[in-house]
């Protein structure tokens, strides 16, 4: 069934339990689906845009209120919508990093954080992880000292992931920020995997900038996201335009330079906004989600040879497994080769793990029910047993 020429209707989330690492938290709520169909047209939120003509001042639909609520939800002073977390990184790097400036990232920083540094012509330095795949305050302090010495400059900015995309591990953000602040380094906390899923308190963390992703963790369409900051830094990153038409004398009001003016003028902002009441509730229920993922991991660990590479017990639903000594031993002789596992899962109505993976793979169980958790756990064991792997349950 097509929706437009050559475009197949997407039914993944109607037919399967979807464990895709990046999709789980971006699945729309039904309210967002309704909003998306009502506000699909370009510039659909601009019907009642009046002076001073900026997205975050529109009161119908209630975008102004939504902006204020977002800031307060994150316990930050000011928030803006951005076309994806990456555009939040870009705005902050563009405002703070000058060519040649050293910038700190971590061993688990996302590629888009690196790109924002590259675009600002900064120099990237990683803070290493420890053996448990955690970024530590000591590691950060040592790297700050070293980088400051070798470059002769204090880093202009430090990026840290609250939960990283590789292991789904929780890093000690608040302590890392304390270290950075001792050297007067502003910190951007990347909450792409936390904001909208877990309770995130910017002031408590001490973050100068908090960035979240609408399509990754806030049940919103792509591209969408949020950049929140303190009153202190808002003056820099949300500075309004000062440029002037040299002949016409035109100036451009309160448009913000790093935002490129208005950001999400339609379906994306309304989708985020429609999901927001649900998002506010669901962050309070994250503990249950953590229980469910641990139930799945525990089941996987009963399969001989299986390891969990993420911190364990799990504190987040994004999880990295290593089944080189279990499922991959089957793949070596199976007629479907590495595809046997994802194919067997699919037959059981479970999708979202990279097709063909049997060694190191990730899944994200965010948003499932207790029954679905049991079903997934049982399915993995069933597949393992069917293929003759020893299970210790």
């Amino acid at each position, binding site marked *: 069934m097509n929706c437009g020429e050559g475009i197949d209707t997407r039914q993944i*989330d*109607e037919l*399967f339990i979807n464990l895709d690492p990046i999709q789980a938290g971006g*699945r729309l709520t*039904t309210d967002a*689906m309704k909003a998306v169909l009502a506000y699909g047209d370009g510039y659909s939120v601009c019907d009642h845009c009046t002076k001073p003509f900026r997205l975050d001042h529109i009161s119908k639909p209630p975008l102004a209120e939504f902006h204020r609520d977002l800031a307060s939800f994150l316990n930050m002073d000011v928030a803006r919508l951005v076309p994806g977390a990456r555009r939040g990184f870009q705005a902050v790097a563009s405002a703070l990093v000058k060519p040649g400036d050293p910038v700190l990232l971590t061993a688990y920083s996302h590629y888009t954080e690196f790109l924002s540094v590259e675009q600002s012509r900064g120099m990237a330095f990683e803070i290493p992880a420890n053996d448990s795949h955690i970024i530590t305050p000591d590691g950060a302090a040592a790297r700050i000292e070293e980088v400051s010495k070798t470059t002769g400059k204090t880093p202009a900015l430090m990026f840290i992931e609250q939960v990283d995309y590789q292991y789904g591990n929780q890093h000690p953000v608040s302590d890392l920020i304390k270290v950075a602040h001792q050297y007067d380094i502003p910190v951007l906390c990347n909450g792409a995997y936390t904001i909208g899923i877990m309770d995130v308190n910017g002031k408590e963390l001490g973050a100068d900038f908090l960035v979240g992703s609408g399509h990754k963790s806030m049940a919103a369409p792509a591209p969408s996201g949020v950049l929140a900051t303190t009153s202190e830094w808002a003056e820099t990153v949300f500075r309004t335009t000062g440029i002037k038409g040299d002949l016409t004398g035109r100036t451009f009001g309160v448009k913000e330079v790093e935002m490129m003016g208005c950001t999400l003028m339609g379906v994306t902002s309304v989708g985020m906004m429609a999901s927001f009441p649900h998002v506010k509730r669901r962050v309070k229920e994250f503990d249950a989600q953590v229980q469910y993922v641990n139930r799945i991991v525990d089941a996987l660990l009963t399969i001989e040879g299986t390891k969990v590479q993420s911190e364990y017990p799990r504190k987040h639903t994004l999880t990295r497994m290593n089944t080189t000594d279990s499922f991959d031993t089957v793949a070596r002789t199976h007629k479907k080769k590495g595809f046997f596992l994802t194919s067997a899962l699919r037959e*059981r*109505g*479970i999708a979202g793990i990279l097709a063909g993976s049997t060694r190191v793979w990730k899944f994200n169980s965010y948003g499932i029910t207790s029954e679905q958790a049991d079903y997934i756990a049982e399915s993995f064991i069933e597949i393992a047993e069917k293929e003759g792997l020893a299970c210790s349950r």
Partner: protein
Amino acid sequence: MSKRSVDAVFQGLYLLTDIRGMLRDTVPHHHLSVEQKKEAEKILGKLEKQVAILKEELLA
């Protein structure tokens, strides 16, 4: 203008979206609980009404 038919189209879209949400909540087997069945019945009843309105408004 026929505000009534426009409203019926949106109501219809929203009701089908509620059914869609229910199917999503119950993947992969779509076994609805007794309560969900009741809810689905209510939604589909309302949907039939919207279709009837559209017939009335558009085909008269």
